[in-house]
């Protein structure tokens, strides 16, 4: 649900959290990105960082150059001038990520956690149970059936929050409690209604369902796709998961190791928000019809 007005919450003396709505969906997130782009374009010199998230964004500012009240007023004005409609189109890259579902690395990681917490249902089985999926094959089909929207980046350099664009591909899962102390680099997990790809070996809480050998973060900028940026994704990109078998998985790993791997990135497409929302509505209605 989109709020009627922006809600401002001060985060100490150098940050403001601004909520636009209450919910994890494409529409709110798209408006977040539009507003953040408009705030950026306004060129307010005292703003140091902007962090767009799912239904909110954070502004870091220099309080010795602008007051909290003035900055809130400026952002409200920009929001009013922007108009409320969710329309338009934007360039959006489509990046294909190869994935081996039920791979050895995440399987071992889940097993290690279950040594300490034996009551924990193995991640893919838990996700199947909670989403009415009969088996892991059905989970693989559903998870790879949709394009995903890069809704936000954060928590760790290059870590993406992906929202499925096909309504019936929505999969939900609780986060680990307590969290894992380690997760393999490249693990693919589901938490809440989001999918993420772990850019590096980090702690984590998402339910793990597979692994990609294709790097999404390259701190040393060794691979050709990382010449301009350490992280692969930008907000507004789209991602597609391509299931691969063990042979192709190992082949990609070898090409990454020798430094010749290239991502499959299509960047000639324009994403039409209006056409997408019409399509999503039809899909959702068709799904209800079936149910």
């Amino acid at each position, binding site marked *: 649900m989109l709020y009627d007005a922006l809600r401002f*919450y001060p*985060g*100490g*003396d*150098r*940050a403001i959290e601004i909520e636009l709505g209450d919910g994890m969906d494409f529409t709110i997130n798209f408006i977040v990105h539009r507003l953040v782009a408009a705030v950026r374009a306004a060129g307010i010199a005292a703003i140091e*960082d902007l962090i767009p998230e799912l239904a909110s964004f954070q502004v870091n500012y220099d*309080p010795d150059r602008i007051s909290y009240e003035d900055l809130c007023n400026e952002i409200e004005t920009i929001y009013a001038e922007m108009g409320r409609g969710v329309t338009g189109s934007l360039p959006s890259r489509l990046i294909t990520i190869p994935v081996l579902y039920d791979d050895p690395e995440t399987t071992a990681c889940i097993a290690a956690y279950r040594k300490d917490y034996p009551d924990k249902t193995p991640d893919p089985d838990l996700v199947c149970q909670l989403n009415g999926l009969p088996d892991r094959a059905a989970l693989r089909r559903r998870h790879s059936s949709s394009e995903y929207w890069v809704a*936000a980046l954060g928590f*760790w350099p290059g870590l993406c929050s992906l929202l499925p664009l096909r309504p019936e591909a929505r999969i939900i899962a609780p986060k680990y409690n307590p969290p894992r102390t380690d997760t393999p680099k490249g693990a693919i997990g589901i938490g809440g209604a989001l999918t993420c790809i772990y850019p590096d070996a980090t702690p984590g809480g998402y339910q793990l369902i597979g692994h990609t050998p294709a790097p999404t973060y390259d701190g040393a900028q060794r691979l050709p796709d990382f010449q301009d940026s350490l992280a692969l994704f930008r907000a507004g990109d789209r991602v597609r998961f391509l299931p691969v078998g063990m042979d192709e998985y190992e082949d990609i790993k070898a090409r990454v190791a020798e430094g010749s791997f290239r991502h499959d990135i299509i960047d000639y497409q324009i994403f039409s928000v209006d056409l997408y929302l019409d399509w999503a509505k039809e899909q959702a209605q068709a799904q209800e019809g079936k149910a």
Partner: protein
Amino acid sequence: MSRSFTTDKPGLQTCVQELPGRIGFLEQGFPLSGPFDAWSFRQANILVGNDRDTAALECQFAGPTLTLETDALVAVTGADMRPKIDGEPVPMWTTLPIRAGQTLALGPAMRGARSYIAISGGIATDPVLGSRAVFHQAGVGGHALTAGQSVPLGTPTTDVTLSQVPEAARPVISSDKRWQVEALAGPNDDWLTPETVETFFSADWAIQAKSSRTGVRLTGPEFAFSARATDKNPDHGQDPSNIIDHGYPMGAVNLAGQTPIILVNDSPSTGGFINPFTVASAAFWKLAQARPGEVLNFRRIDRDEAGRLRAHLDAMTRPEVLERV
């Protein structure tokens, strides 16, 4: 004579830091990094004639041993790590001339946790994403020093007066293991009951051993949640402390279940837990110097008072505060 130093012993995760940190990349998940105690950091720089925000070393709990490959001025500030040059004790908070081939050695922190070593000319490692600040866990801007590592230095300014920071201008590192830390309510204080908000500002909070530049974990009373946390859209998650992923302000007191973690320089940029309180930016240095087992008390202030604290820290870290020795 190359302008550099050689690392003989690296100490405990000694890292290059610089101000203002890695600005502009939080939206890709890169934390700000930068010195944890900016007060001590800046005073070390001005003692050796550097701009106060110049890249310098942050030492944690146990300091490094370095051999200078060039004549230089050095200064050590922050936690007392009993610095020595060629085995002879030298004062902290003071400009120290050092010659090529001499060794600066720091020991364990006697009081406080973090010391800063500034060297005239500053550290001249290659900036990554606009900053020399090191985010050690992800290797952004490099890693912690390793034994044998040679570190390049920049060109110093000339005409530096040998000085010291008068005691009255230094940050006061607690001698009784208790710290009063100024903090503001918000952004998510409305997810807690008003009683819990009051409790937060009156209770003793002990610092857990598992605390670092990625977060300061606290032990204290239980939190009680308001309706906003307990009766919410399921998209937020199951636990009362879960919220739809949002930005994390630096200094925020992040509540994961019942464990508060103060988010500091190398903490995550975003996540799915609430931040009911935020430490004032001019009080971050206290979190850098408070040691595991010590106790924090949070004093509630408003934005105006936070501004006065910033102005004081700014004034205390300008060259005018130095006195000639």
